[in-house]
């Protein structure tokens, strides 16, 4: 039996969402209110187990009386708030944000982004042909950049980082949502192995001095990968299978069980393809793990397959 914390009773707040009156509990966000009435708002940096980072700006909506658009994932509802999620301004913002992201980043493994782009008519190619991958992104200095000629569009394309047997870091797919940093840092793991480094377009997720993960404070819990919305971070096994074309989610089953390594009782979800465990995650609504695991639960399952 799962015990659900229901907390103290909350006052209901009435807001207007796209002309429709909605009552949601005090303290709910605009995104919560949208979800409650079945309105879908695209999000990337929002994480159900993390505090809002407010970084990607995909979920921006219009609130009457506000000079700028507001992030629906973090802005709490207020009585009488009038919210428009499909106004011209909102749609323009969503389209441009997706175009900007798509023009600079490889979104080929980002779930749903294709649907969102076609829904708002986003065309990330209109900023020009992408510039070729660069190998110097870890060394770029803040406050300076090479003068562009405008004939190509700057991107974050760069070589994949594989410096350990468990993780792959493909920062050409990174949208800087801060989720991995938050999961690694004070919100969950408290390892602080990674941070955002650099500034502006040259900002990147990095260990100290871009040192390889095995020399960093990384404990290989995999909780950063769990929250990555674009596939920039992935498990080595999944990455290899995708590379050789044998990764097939339609042939995978998911079975949730309990980790046997210690007495904490973490829930494990085993992703099994062709009778072989290919990935282990944990349910985000698990009151024990909130989606987090340690290296043992996440990666210590090879013995199961010792047939």
């Amino acid at each position, binding site marked *: 039996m799962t015990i659900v914390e229901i907390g103290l009773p909350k006052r209901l707040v009435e807001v207007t969402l796209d002309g429709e009156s909605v009552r949601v509990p005090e303290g709910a966000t605009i995104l919560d209110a949208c979800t409650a009435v079945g309105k879908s708002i695209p999000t990337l940096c929002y994480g159900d187990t993390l505090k809002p980072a407010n970084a990607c700006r995909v979920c921006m909506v219009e609130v009457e009386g506000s000079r700028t658009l507001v992030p629906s994932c973090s802005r709490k509802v207020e009585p009488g708030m009038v919210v428009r999620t499909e106004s011209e301004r909102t749609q323009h*913002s969503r389209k441009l*944000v997706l175009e*900007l992201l798509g023009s600079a980043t490889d979104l080929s493994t980002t779930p749903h982004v294709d649907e969102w782009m076609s829904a708002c008519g986003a065309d990330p190619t209109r900023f020009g042909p992408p510039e070729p991958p660069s190998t110097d992104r870890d060394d770029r200095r803040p406050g300076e950049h090479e003068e562009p000629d405008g004939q190509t569009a700057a991107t974050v394309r760069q070589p994949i980082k594989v410096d350990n047997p468990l993780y792959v870091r493909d920062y050409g797919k990174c949208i800087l949502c801060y989720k991995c940093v938050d999961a690694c840092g004070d919100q969950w793991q408290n390892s602080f192995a990674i941070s955002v480094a650099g500034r502006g377009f040259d900002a990147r997720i990095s260990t100290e*001095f871009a040192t390889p993960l095995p020399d960093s404070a990384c404990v290989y819990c995999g909780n950063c990968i769990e929250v990555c919305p674009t596939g920039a971070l992935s498990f080595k096994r999944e990455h290899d299978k995708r590379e050789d074309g044998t990764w097939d989610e339609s042939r995978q089953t998911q079975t949730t069980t309990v980790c046997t390594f210690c007495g904490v009782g973490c829930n494990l979800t085993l992703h099994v393809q062709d009778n072989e465990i290919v990935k282990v995650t944990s349910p985000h609504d698990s009151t024990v793990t909130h989606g987090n695991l340690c290296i043992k639960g996440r990666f210590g399952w090879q013995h199961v397959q010792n047939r």
Partner: protein
Amino acid sequence: MDLKLLDVEPTEAERVVVDLFTGMGRDQLLPALHAVNDRVGWISQGALNHICRVLHIPPAEAYGVASFYSLFSLTERPARVVHVCVDLACQVNGAKALCDRLTDELGPAGARSGWLRSPCLGVCEKAPAALAFEAGEVAKEQLLAPTHAGEVIAVAAAGPSHVDDERAEVPQAGDSGLRLLKRVGVVDPESLDDYRATGGYQALRTALLLGPSGVIREITDAKLMGRGGAAFPTGRKWDATARQPVRPHYLVCNADESEPGTFKDRLLMEGDPFAVIESMTIAGFAAGCSKGYLYLRGEYPRALHLLRNAISKARERGFLGANIMGHEGFSFDIEIRRGAGAYICGEETAIFNSIEGFRGEPRSKPPFPVEQGLFGKPTVVNNVETLVNVPVILTEGCEAYTRIGTEGSTGPKLFCLSGNVSRPGVYEVPFGTTLGELLDLAGGVPPGRELRAVLLGGAAGGFVRPDELGLPLTMEDARAAGTTLGSGVVLVLDDTADLGSFLLRIAAFFRDESCGQCVPCRIGTVRQEEALHRLVGKRPLSTSAADLQLLREVGQVMRDSSICGLGQTAWNAIESALDRLGYAEEATS
């Protein structure tokens, strides 16, 4: 928290300066990085490691912070480096030719050749400018302004001289009508006695008699508005903070003056440093703050020296510390924080993160600083010029103050005149003076030239045309005319100025200074610069009209969806050049 450090040790010199921070916490990260940079000129792995050990900070986070600031280098560089300003006012005054000479003689800009291109150094009245720095047991800094290639090359070879006794100057010095600038260039900025002999610390005495709520009432009735660019009513800000039951309250004096073309706060700090300290003390008294931080941009060595002197003298004489001026129970002290090369740290919430030892990224509002600011506590953030108006209000009275300026914009205002103007400098005029009158005061454009445009408010401001010189300089008139006074920048361009290059510099500036946190600004400023290059260079992707449309769309999303004012205004000046100056037509024809 167990720290995993790299297996690298600091040098003896690095260890000595970092060990001075033993027992301190995260908020000393920026000062510790400065200490290493001042000593050796760059931040090595061993030094950063040792800072992390002493201050107990995860190395990845400290690296994230150190790599945020342009004045620090995380790769080895020589102890001596000259920062050459290439920003707006210097560009108009020959910075490009200067850089070309330096490239020829010293090699391309970079640590190895000993010179670097720098954003606005805040000495636009003496453009072109450069700042020489040399790390050592006593770090040396010397401002070269106005400079020329020969001087930069000589200083790059011989190093900066340590004696820098040049005094702040304003064109109106000695004018009896001056209030904010009355001491600048007239009294000895190092002498507390001179300050007191010219009315100093009378306002604090008045404030202590009025009590905190009395002071707030005076400031509110004087209708003082913030002078940093946003024009928020100061009295309301103080009142909202004073009412917060949570303690302590903090005061932050925003002296991170980095808006290209702005140098008024530097002149105030260099010419009248005690006034800044007294004003902060009054603000601290009114809003119930026990501690004030003066966040000074890293490129102002002279102001740093004079403010340090002012604070220590004020402390000696009981104007800072416990029971100030004998007022039982009123304690207040000031700590200077040096920025390290990041325009964004002048944003009112980014400044908190920077002081706390985190990356200088703006926070999402709400919550507002008056509720949760520095260290999560209620905080007042005021610009230097705003604060310096406070003693004027308290000594002259709020009624007399409101008679200066206009109904909607009260008081005197400082404007920073630079570019193609005969007598550049900071001018003090009442709000309501017209732009034309102000230009006349500064002697207009040089003889034989014609006015092309004025950039009002800075890189985040907008252009006005020569036929708009009748514009009264007030917050409300500027707003009604679709422009802004911003931080008081009046950058004049005559018919010799190259508008295309000027706009490209604005675009490059915003790209360089974006913190990178949100998508519209991080990528938008890049796409803006790229599209502008195509437009200015007449090399469109398809047509110039399409590039123009692209610029407008990117500008709109930056304005609508960026987290902070930097991204929201990064398109303002370019938009106004396109539409108000007619550059759109010029570029697409």
